[in-house]
């Protein structure tokens, strides 16, 4: 389906000839997922889908306690300081943003009265202004009203570098202004296709001005409310022991009728993922357990008792293989993998092609990850609107052998291929983690059959993922030929995710290896496509550009997707909860309930 056809369909929806659902189904039939379809409709002037609520309780409270188990407990409860999921999820019990992302990647209003669209005047045609109308009659937990001043304050608070807020990136480049008591505008410096960042989702939780106004900037760490949140959310703060337990009680004045259902909520932390799964699936001591990085085989066994089930929520996180484009074995100006070098053997495109044929995604899914890691070759696969159909998984040792043979790489006496005295010997590093070591073994075995010798290296996670400039084994230094890890995509927009292919983002000594482009790939074409996405306001064209960028990286074997890493959680049989892969686990907590 091309752009024109899509526009035709959108026209039909507008004219009422085609239902929204019909449109979404038509889009899905050609591989464009529900979220993109929703967003296409919105930006084309059809209101964003609000799926019928499945919330059944007819009165507030009465549901008893809700017991959540996070195997890493929250350590702080200020959403602007919350860097890890655990802290953001914990903050979200009490704080809310203007809008949240639902599982399909649609926006759902929380503190906003409605989602801004072109039709209701919320989005300007030039892509420079978003106008948010706030819900009226909302109060903070201490009874003070929630107004536009609070929203503007959050911008001032987060954008101040002295505050050192982790959310700064969402706020520093925008201008926020109060129009009236219940209206706020967000202005961008240039047309911005992804406007739903500030005040939305994980990084959009709002803190009250009257309690934080004195603690902006350098004094931010002294605010008593950092540890005793006062928000607008469905539950009010009761007690907090960092790393162990957060408790809350029902907010009797919550701004949505008949919600929340539970009388209290507790989030317990600590322990490990397997026993967390056990406490939900096997003993039912807890109602919900988060982020179960456990082999599927174990989860299936625990599920057998029938006390609960595992839910797999798709997102954008990807476990992938990186092929170095620079030479990790030669030091230039005090750094290896320098941009001034070329990889001695991997710079041969035929070798790269052969490597791609030696990655057996299917076996890796089947034998290691199961439901918790569907195989994919793409780097960008979600939301589904960005999932390219052009990169089928191909595992073929014979073909790899053939390609290498034709390219002049001959097997030596030791069975390892060589050309011009250079042997196909690679070092392949990743962090210590059982599924990763198993994956390494599968890839090494296949490579061996094609005459490529792979030496496996595993680095303890606290070193591998650290930014320690002095340590040569960090993933950003990439001082090996191949490496593998999971990169996370926190928002349903691939803008930041795809920075990993932009030349200027290369991780080098000059930027203390903080650049996002770890493979150091230098491609003018990729840069050009990325720049296009930054200015393109039309979501259909923009999605197409992102797909093109993904295909370019995959087809040049810069990176290779191995498996998707969806969010895996466990819930008891009676619990109804909607988990979104694009927002916090607890983003929809007000709507959780249990069947009677």
């Amino acid at each position, binding site marked *: 389906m091309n752009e024109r056809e899509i526009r035709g369909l959108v026209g039909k929806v507008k004219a009422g000839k085609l239902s929204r659902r019909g449109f979404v189904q038509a889009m899905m039939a050609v591989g464009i997922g529900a979220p993109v379809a929703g967003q296409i409709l919105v930006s084309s002037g059809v209101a964003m889908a609000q799926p019928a609520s499945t919330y059944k309780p007819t009165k507030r409270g009465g549901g008893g306690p809700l017991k959540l*188990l996070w195997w890493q407990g929250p350590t702080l409860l200020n959403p602007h300081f919350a860097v890890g999921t655990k802290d953001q999820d914990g903050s979200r019990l009490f704080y809310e943003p203007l809008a949240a992302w639902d599982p399909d990647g649609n926006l759902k209003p929380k503190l906003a009265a409605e989602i801004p669209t072109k039709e209701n005047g919320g989005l300007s045609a030039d892509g420079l202004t978003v106008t948010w109308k706030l819900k009226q009659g909302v109060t903070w937990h201490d009874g003070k009203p929630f107004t536009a001043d609070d929203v503007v304050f959050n911008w001032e608070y987060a954008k101040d570098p002295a505050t*050192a807020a982790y959310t700064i990136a969402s706020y520093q480049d925008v201008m926020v202004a109060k129009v009236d008591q219940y209206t706020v505008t967000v202005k961008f410096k240039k047309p911005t296709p992804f406007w739903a960042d500030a005040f939305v989702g994980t990084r959009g939780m709002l803190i009250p001005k009257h309690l934080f106004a004195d603690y902006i900037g350098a004094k931010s760490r002294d605010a008593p409310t*950092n540890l005793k949140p006062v928000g607008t959310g469905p539950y009010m703060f009761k007690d907090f022991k960092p790393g162990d337990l957060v408790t809350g009680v029902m907010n009797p004045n919550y701004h949505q009728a008949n919600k929340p259902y539970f009388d209290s909520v507790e989030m317990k932390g600590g322990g490990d993922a397997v026993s967390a799964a056990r406490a939900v699936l096997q*003993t039912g001591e807890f109602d919900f357990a988060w982020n179960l990085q456990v082999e599927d085989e174990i989860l299936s066994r625990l599920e057998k008792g029938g006390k609960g089930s595992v839910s797999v929520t798709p997102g954008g996180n990807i476990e992938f293989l990186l092929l170095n484009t620079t030479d990790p074995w030669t030091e230039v100006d005090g750094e290896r993998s320098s941009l001034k070098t070329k990889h001695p053997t991997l710079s041969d495109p035929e070798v790269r092609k052969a490597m791609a044929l030696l990655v057996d995604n299917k076996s890796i899914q089947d034998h290691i990850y199961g439901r918790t890691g569907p195989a994919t070759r793409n780097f960008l696969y979600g939301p589904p609107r960005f999932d390219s159909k052009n990169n089928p998984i191909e595992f073929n040792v014979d073909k790899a052998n053939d390609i290498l043979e034709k390219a002049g790489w001959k097997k030596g006496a030791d069975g390892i291929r060589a050309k011009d005295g250079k042997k196909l010997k690679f070092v392949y590093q990743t962090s210590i983690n059982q599924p990763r070591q198993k994956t390494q073994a599968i890839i090494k075995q296949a490579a061996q059959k094609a005459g490529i010798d792979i030496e496996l290296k595993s680095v303890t996670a*606290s070193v591998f993922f650290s*930014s320690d400039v002095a340590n040569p084994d960090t993933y950003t230094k990439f001082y090996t030929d191949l490496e593998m890890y999971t990169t996370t995509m926190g928002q349903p927009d691939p803008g930041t995710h795809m920075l990993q292919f932009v030349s200027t983002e290369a991780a080098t000594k000059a930027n203390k290896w903080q650049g996002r482009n770890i493979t150091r790939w230098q491609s003018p074409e990729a840069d050009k496509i990325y720049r296009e996405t930054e200015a393109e306001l039309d979501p259909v064209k923009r999605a197409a550009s992102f797909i093109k960028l993904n295909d370019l990286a995959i087809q040049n074997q810069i990176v290779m997707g191995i498996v998707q890493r969806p969010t895996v959680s466990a819930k008891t049989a009676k619990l109804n909860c909607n988990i979104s892969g694009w927002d916090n686990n607890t983003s929809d907590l007000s709507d959780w309930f249990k069947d009677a």
Partner: protein
Amino acid sequence: MSRQYVIRKLLIMIPSLLGISIVLFALLAMAPGDPFDELATNPAVPPEVRAALRAKFGLDDPIWMRYWHWLFALMQGDWGFSFVSRMDVSTLIMQRLPVTLVVIGASQILAIVIAIPVGVLAATRPYSLFDQIANTFAFIGFSLPTFFTGLVLILVFSIQLDWLPFVYRADITATGWAFYWEHIKQSIMPVTVLGLFQGAALVRFVRSSVLDVIRLDYVTTARSKGIGERKVITRHVVRTALIPVVTLVALQMPIVFSGAIVTEQIFRVPGIGSLLITSMLSNDTPVVMGVTFVSACLVVVFNLIADILYGWLDPRIAFR
């Protein structure tokens, strides 16, 4: 016991504690990892924020300067400020301390209560059936790691029988008797696991210590004076034999404070041990420094207490 002796010991403590703190601080400062690592891997957080945070928490200062700041603050009773939780280290420790004291303390008491009578009985009847059974159990007890016995107990008592919860909760909402009952119920497994582990080692220790003493001449003299066997054992043997045991128990006391890392992880006991391990994993050095330094202080203090107890148990050990 001379007062001079105690004062001299106390004075020696100061340089040793300073030395310990310097070593700890230097090790932590030089260890790989950075409390704001997570920020570096997060594309949404610009490097300036990390730089601002490092500056705010003084991480860019030279090590000696940071140590000086730490020491100076400590003199004023300030244990430092957690990078990760953004609260005082002392508050964090105080939140965890009661649970640790109760759970680990109970397990220590259990260990002592079991080990001393069993060890003494075993020693008075060496190679009897009782001795052999006690020895066998002691061997099994300290060869099985706590993570194994913990898991076995969970599988049996929580999963199979469904009698006991395996997630420890510091906040029990029940009141009255139900409150205590819930606390006891959730403490049974962690206390048993730890108590048996420590008790097993202690049994062996008490047994061999009593065996050493029981053959000494003064015991034979006491017996030949016609003193009853029970009295000989309790008055003459056990008292002397307890000296090395006291050393062992006294030196284990700091564990009561610093917690049992593995057991606390298994049962999710929110004690000092789990605080220490999570702080280490997140490179939260002020917390790690706080907990380890308190442990070090306790080791030194309990050493002193052990020295003093020696004199009370056996006046032959003179204080000079």
